């Protein structure tokens, strides 16, 4: 079941990336193309079969997991700054692209590298489950979630404001869907960062629902974009 969901998500990401390609060539919204390209990398590397073979090529020291984390950071950095600009929130945009946002991004990326080198990670293991008892691996996972939680939180407020404004229904539904998706990303990251016994069922549902909601929100934006009044 999980495998089917993952392969479906991968196919969706590949399709979106290919679909954004012509727009990227014309120089329109390059950020979105790269966000989808990075999302494709992240989803692909979260599938164990792909992870093991890629990591094997890279020396079998789980460097693929670092690539996975950093590409997720890129996805969130690009998507969050686009959403902040789209919903006209200079504050959220500063919190992502400004000094504070970049500091958090650099801190988390540095944390990933430091904890990676501090751990003993010989032998490919998807999700680093074989090494979960090492404290540095736990810190590594914590850094991986910290940035996602931060970026998601920054986008919750502008999307919420747009959803409760007097915009047309479709635009408000799109903003609402994005907002709910980012709330769930935040919640999922928070659950994983706490030392509680992780309920795996809950996590799976949260992550998958958040992907669905964000995708649905973007789809609604595109529908609204296609139906936009052309002559103005």
């Amino acid at each position: 079941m999980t495998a089917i969901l993952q392969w479906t998500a991968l196919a969706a990401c590949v399709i979106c990336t290919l679909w954004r390609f012509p727009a990227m060539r014309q120089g329109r919204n390059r950020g979105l193309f790269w966000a989808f390209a990075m999302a494709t990398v992240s989803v692909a590397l979260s599938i164990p079969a792909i992870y093991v073979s890629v990591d094997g090529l890279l020396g079998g020291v789980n460097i693929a997991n670092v690539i996975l984390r950093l590409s997720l950071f890129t996805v969130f950095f690009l998507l969050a700054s686009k959403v902040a600009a789209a919903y006209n929130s200079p504050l959220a945009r500063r919190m992502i692209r400004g000094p504070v946002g970049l500091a958090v991004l650099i801190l988390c990326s540095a944390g990933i590298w430091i904890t990676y080198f501090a751990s003993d990670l010989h032998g490919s293991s998807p999700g680093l489950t074989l090494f979960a008892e090492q404290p540095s691996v736990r810190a590594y996972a914590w850094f991986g979630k910290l940035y996602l939680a931060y970026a998601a939180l920054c986008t919750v407020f502008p999307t919420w404001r747009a959803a409760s404004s007097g915009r047309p229904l479709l635009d408000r539904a799109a903003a609402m869907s994005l907002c709910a998706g980012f709330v769930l990303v935040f919640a999922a990251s928070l659950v994983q960062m706490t030392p509680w016994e992780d309920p795996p069922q809950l996590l799976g549902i949260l992550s998958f629902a958040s992907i669905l909601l964000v995708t649905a929100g973007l789809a609604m934006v595109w529908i609204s974009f296609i139906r936009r009044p052309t002559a103005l």
Partner: protein
Amino acid sequence: MTVPAKAFQQWLAGVAGTTSHAAVCRAAGIKRSTLAQQLVRGRVSVATVAAVSRSLQLPVVDSLSAFAKFNDLATGLKPPTSAELLSQVSDTDLLTEILKRRQRSDAGPDAAVLELSPPHHRASVRTWLDAVGPADLRAQVAREVGIAPQNLSTQISGNRLTAELAVASARIAGVGLANGLVASGFLSPGEAGWLPGARSVALRQTPDSALVLLAAERLESLGRTLRRIEADTDAAQKVWENLG
């Protein structure tokens, strides 16, 4: 805006006799299923009453007066004030009249009388409320009918006003009870007892100064509306630019 289904059935039996619902609907141009649904829910819309009434050549005002909510409507008809008449002249017609008068004073008389567009213009609800009301008319109406002031505002900015609100506003403002129904486009001026050409006469009799000041008010509120629309468009544009 609805009347009870039971009252509607009684009224229909009184005016249409034994004519079947299907025939009534066909004549009135409403869907059979729409009426059936309204009857099942127990609430028939006033638009249905008006459509049936028109198809039977009955005065809509008299028909509505058969229902408890509107029982004083027919007796409460009053000719519109000149402010009300002017409020139902569109911005374009108002400005055209001003221009025509300027041209006449510059280039001599010109016999052509301005043909007015229909009374339910783009902001006719707001202009009518402004024309009849004391300053706190909206607040009083919302309190009287028991709806939230922002719901009333939404209707006004959408140039809509339910029949109940229109009649309540007219009652509070002390004008003819059906006049608000003309502003909301529910009734034609004739159906509310307005004389044909009354708006043209009122427009012609308004002195230049009053006309220009009225036009200035209209342009100011049009400017506000346009600014809001532009801000909304900009916001949508921004979303499309960044995520589209």
